[in-house]
């Protein structure tokens, strides 16, 4: 159960951070920053946008630190902020780059051995497909597969029920299978 795994002194750190202890706040953030950045990258598809979203998330985290419920843990609350900031960034970017998607996205056609043989191209394609999933699906998939969150923890980050988290995960996998299956299934 990843939801309950918290540093034993997190509550104390939280109290200290609320009291203005920057070092305590930094320790809290450092413990989960990489997870947050990974989630943001997954949702936004590139490091630059993700770091921007993380910066916004940190400001909000500090500003609203008093709202953390210690019994529910800092991580879920923090990641939820990251998730929301990433969504906002994604929405802004979608408007900014709408014209770039007029052409069909690059895809390795079934049977295109050259494309398949290029590992990096393939990975880029997988990443692009994951980034193009609806945000909650992408986030659910990321949190489950890479962070090994259980459904309850995913639900807490995304602000949904565990059942919905399971549904999002199934949909995400189904979508990826639909797009990748023909290319890589023998």
């Amino acid at each position, binding site marked *: 159960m990843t939801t309950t795994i918290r540093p034993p002194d997190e509550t104390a750190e939280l109290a200290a951070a609320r009291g203005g202890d920057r070092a305590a706040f930094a320790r809290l953030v450092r413990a989960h920053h990489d997870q947050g*950045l990974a989630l943001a990258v997954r949702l936004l598809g590139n490091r630059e946008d993700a770091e921007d979203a993380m910066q916004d998330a940190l400001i909000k985290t500090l500003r609203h630190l008093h709202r953390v419920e210690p019994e529910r843990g800092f991580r879920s609350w923090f990641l939820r*902020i990251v998730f929301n900031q990433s969504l906002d960034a994604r929405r802004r970017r*979608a408007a*900014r*780059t709408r014209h770039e998607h007029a052409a069909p996205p690059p895809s390795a056609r079934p049977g295109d051995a050259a494309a398949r043989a290029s590992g990096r191209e393939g990975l880029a394609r997988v990443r692009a497909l994951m980034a193009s999933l*609806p945000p*909650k699906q992408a986030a659910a998939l990321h949190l489950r*597969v890479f962070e090994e969150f259980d459904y309850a923890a995913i639900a807490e980050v995304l602000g949904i029920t565990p059942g919905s988290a399971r549904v999002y995960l199934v949909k995400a996998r189904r979508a990826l299978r639909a797009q*990748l299956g023909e290319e890589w299934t023998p």
Partner: protein
Amino acid sequence: MTRHPSDAQLVRFAQGEQLAERAVEIAFHVAGCAECAARIHAERALDDFVVRSAPLVDAHAADRALERLWRAVDAGALDDAGATDDPGALDARSELSDVGEATDAPTRRPALRLVTALVAAALLLALLPWLIDGERDDPRAPVVAEAPPALDGGAHPFADPAPEFGPDTDLEPARPDAAPPRDEPGTPAPPVDLERLAATRARVAAALLDVPVDPHAPAGAPAHPAVAAESVSAALAPLRAEGWPVDAHLRGLVLGDDVALAERALEHVLAVGGAPSLLAQALRAGVGGDALLERLPVGASALGDSPALVAALAERAPHDARARALLLAEPGPRTRRALDELFGAALERARLADDPRDADFATLCAELPHAAALPWLVRAARPGDAPALADWARARFLARAAVAPNPAADSLRPLLADAPDDDPRLEWLVDARLDALVPDLAQRLDAREHAAAARARLARLATPAAAYALFVELAEDQRGRADPHALRLLLHERPALAEALGARAADAHGAALSAFAETLSDEPAERLLLGAFAALPVGADPRGRRAELLTALARLGGERAGLALLARVDALPADDAVLALAWATSARLAGDAATARWSAQGGDPGTLAQVAADVGERADRDVRPSPRLLRPLERELPRVVALR
């Protein structure tokens, strides 16, 4: 079935060695197979695909983020009293963002915006005589007005309700003609404190200059936009709370003479979403340079809704790809007009030079998506005046049509309706095999002056799909206007199409098929119908397709058709077998063979001949034989079948 990667492959992947092709499959398993994902995850070194491993890539990402955060805090960014965002929830618009769509449209209600605009206009008119600041002499600078504090000492009723301005908060001064009369009750003409005016301007400027500088950014670059926005918003919040329209000051600063201050002010405007008219003015004034264009909200409705911004971009578009991209990203009527003018001018220059490269027309076309470029290529290939340009356009058109056949068809459709037969561009639909245009082309068969050319094009165009479309056009939907000559020409030119058409004809309506058969009496048509017949399933035929095909074949009356029918009799259900035998007997040259077969199987030749005559006579009148007509044969059928 998916394949699981081997341990060696996992290790190779996990160790960050050169990614092999199998790594792609592993990546797939990450998405689809929890077992593989767990195995990969256990290795903990997942290259850049698993971005969780950020420390492997950049061990200082968190430190840098925290450093920026503390700078913002020290600059007072988090002291902004107007910040009420709930970290645990998306902003209201984000509820729509599950599909990743942009929803940057204005969210304020139109009525509220209208009231705000009217109030601002009234205020501006009332204060106009006093509120001209020092930048008035600058022709680029707008008239800047300040709102007075509320008379009752509280928050000013005209204070900007938004903590910061976004796309829906344009900084354009309200039009004086939209304001109510100055002496209208409820519109006070308060005194103006010029000292306070200057002090406010100074405070806005100070707030902008106090924005922290990012030490990791290029020299002189401002801090992270979010930090800058927070910082400036925090500095401006008290002013807003007192009812002073600090946005107007920002406008004045952006368009002012202090370059550094102007860029800072512009940075803030962009960071909080941008005000289109101000951005347009900044573009024209050269404030912010290319960076401003890079940060304009591409695709945001604010851009297309702002005539000023569209006009400013249009001015730059001939020599600025980014400006063109911004215009292209906005599908509104204003941007479309601007692009039409841009492309129209480039095309005219290219036509005069008879070289697309001389006038950058080629560059412009290359930037357009297929659907948008094709009509311009069609126009560029207008016959007569610029043959080299026409050749170039034709080649580009065909290349793009291969990628986007439907937009290509759309772009040629108007041409097809109006162009004379000798317009060489009409041949493009043949060269490009634009099946979607076949029905349009077929319609020209009805026009006497276009019929011959249309028939020739149809014959050359006909891919199987196009031939089927033609079949539908000529036989199914326009039975009375079927053009036998066109169909014969089609099948003579492309005999192999008969089989393809036949396979599809099995799905066609029976009456249409009969009409089609009526137009054909030669070998290709015979092959077509037999192909259709062979494509029918042998079992149940509730829609009567088999009988329809048999009728059509009977009309052909050829020996080959009759013999073909006989060859299939044994495979048909009993009632269809009887009908097929009767029709084969009625066929001109297959009657003897049918009779011999019937006799050999114990049937009475006389009965068969009688029925066949009746069936043939009805087929000639396009009437299906009734069950009563076939009954004599059916009575003999058990005996015949028993002899099989």
